């Protein structure tokens, strides 16, 4: 086994609701092709950043890996077990090993339950310990995520905590199970800038300590750079580029990656010249033919409009899906 999580040919199509007139005019069912053939591997103890704009399918990909969404097609291997073929009961057995951290710390905690009890929930649900032991463990982990004094925090309700504190609670709840794999979906995008670094640092500490693998979903490349080992760039349901994080940021290959990276504002000196592209990400119902980026690409060639670009490994571990790099 070379990786903890291996996804192959992952697809997720959401049917579009038809109106009465659509049905009467016998229009065919339309699909939002949110994820359209994604392959990824997340190694043991590795953090992979999944980067893309809204509508790129990055969140749907993460939700499929964690089992919140059933793939339309494709396979997901977790420690060699095929998740897509598991029964609900068998999946529940694996669940404790995979956890998720959500974007919105205000919505990911039940407003009517004490935060301490929410952190204890996974232990009790999975029958790992009794209430007293659970409480002790919770106090320990609360302290560990920097919420002090833990016994006081335990008794609070979510609305009595700030956004940063809530996100620490969410992290505590995910980590108390010592999971092997964590999907973090934009965990700091709703946190104030001055507090982000400490949340990211916390995630990195857990990763080191538990040796866990993480899929870090973000739109912010600067954040991805801080936590990830490798980065995968998604555009309109497909992966366009993948490589080691430093390599992708400093020498991006795909025109889309270049545009994305050079659009990020910086307080220092920019190294990459700005690459301007026109327009916005198209609607995933009407995906452009050929290379999906051809409608906005400044380097578009005839071939791009009709044929999908092959995956080309430009150097070891750094691949791209673009005709510009094809030698054929």
């Amino acid at each position, binding site marked *: 086994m070379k990786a903890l999580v291996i996804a192959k040919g992952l697809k997720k199509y959401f049917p579009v609701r038809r109106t009465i007139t659509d049905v009467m005019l016998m229009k065919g069912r339309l699909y939002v092709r949110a994820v359209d053939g994604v392959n990824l591997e997340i190694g043991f103890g590795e953090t992979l950043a999944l980067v893309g704009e809204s509508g790129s399918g990055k969140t749907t990909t993460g939700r499929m890996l964690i089992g919140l969404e059933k793939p339309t097609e494709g396979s997901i291997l977790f420690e060699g077990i095929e998740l897509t073929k598991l029964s609900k009961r068998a999946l529940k057995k694996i*669940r404790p090993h995979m*956890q*998720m951290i*959500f974007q919105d710390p205000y919505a*990911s905690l*039940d407003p009517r339950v004490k935060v301490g009890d929410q952190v204890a*929930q996974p232990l009790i649900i999975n029958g790992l310990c009794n209430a007293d032991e659970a409480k002790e463990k919770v106090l320990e982990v609360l302290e560990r995520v920097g919420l002090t004094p833990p016994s006081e925090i335990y008794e609070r309700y979510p609305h009595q905590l700030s956004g940063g504190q809530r996100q620490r609670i969410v992290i505590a709840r995910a980590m108390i199970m010592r999971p092997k794999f964590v999907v973090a979906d934009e965990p700091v995008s709703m946190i104030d800038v001055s507090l982000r670094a400490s949340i990211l640092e916390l995630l990195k500490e857990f990763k080191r300590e538990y040796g866990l693998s993480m899929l870090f979903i973000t739109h912010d490349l600067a954040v991805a750079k801080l936590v990830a080992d490798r980065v995968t760039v998604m555009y309109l349901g497909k992966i366009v580029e993948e490589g080691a994080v430093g390599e992708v940021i400093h020498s991006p290959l795909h025109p889309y990656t270049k545009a994305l990276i050079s659009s990020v504002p910086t307080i220092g000196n920019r190294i990459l010249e700005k690459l301007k592209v026109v327009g916005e990400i198209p609607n995933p119902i009407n995906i452009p033919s050929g290379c999906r980026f051809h409608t906005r690409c400044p380097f578009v060639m005839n071939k791009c409009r009709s044929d999908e670009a092959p995956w080309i490994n430009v150097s070891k571990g750094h691949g791209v899906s673009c005709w510009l790099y094809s030698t054929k």
Partner: protein
Amino acid sequence: MMTLFLSTPISAFIRSFPQPAKSMLILGLVIVISIVVMAILAPYIAPHDPASRVYIELQPPSRNYLMGTNHVGMDVFSRVVWGSRVVLFVVAVSAAISMAFGVPLGLISGYYGGLVDRVLSIIMDSIYAFPSLILAIAVAAVLGPSPLNAAISIAVIYVPTYYRMVRGETLKVKQMPFIEALIVLGCSDATILKSIFRNITQTVLVVFSLSVADAILTEAALSFLGLSVTWPTPDWGLDLRSGQPHLLNGYWWIAMCPGLMIIALSLGFALIGEALSDYFSIAAKV
């Protein structure tokens, strides 16, 4: 006792209401609580036997007979006091029945979706599509006149109201990340449903108050039509009917007194419901 009340969480809850919802809530509570107290203490409040002739018929309100006497010489005031018991019984039983069916079905429908949801929705929508009063009359007519049967027939028409509101809220809450977090943690469906329910209790409370306000009118209509209690049991709707022929001859008190009570009780619940729905929607926005 007042100071004791002021220190309870209930009073803190009431005080947290913004105006004008606070005034509405307090007024509604005062009306409803006084009528409930009246019903409980009926034997001590009512000066006369409500169901037998106690004086000359058709006498206007006087000191001994606060609301006058009716066409057979019964004391209208005593009848109004005792009559509150029937209304409250019917309304309480019907609300309990409709909640017992509407809430769990709405939860199941919203949470599981799919075929269950579709079948339940169609059934509920078809009940909802009937004019509610006609449906209640039809059910009550089949079951026969009795307060319990009246309660059942009223319950039938409010099940879809609870169902639809609970289903809608469940669909909303189900997608909240904190519910998805429970799924990821490996919780059973029962735990998840419990957690969803905890977060929709406010909606149930609002639907309860508003539908009870409406059910009071339906109950009055049923007993007006003789589909609830039988004469001479005191009941507001029934007395409304018995007083109606005398209204035009100037004996207004026989119908007016129970009629005003029906309106007051219904208004009381409606005020509470409106105040709660105001408060919760504001709270939801914040």
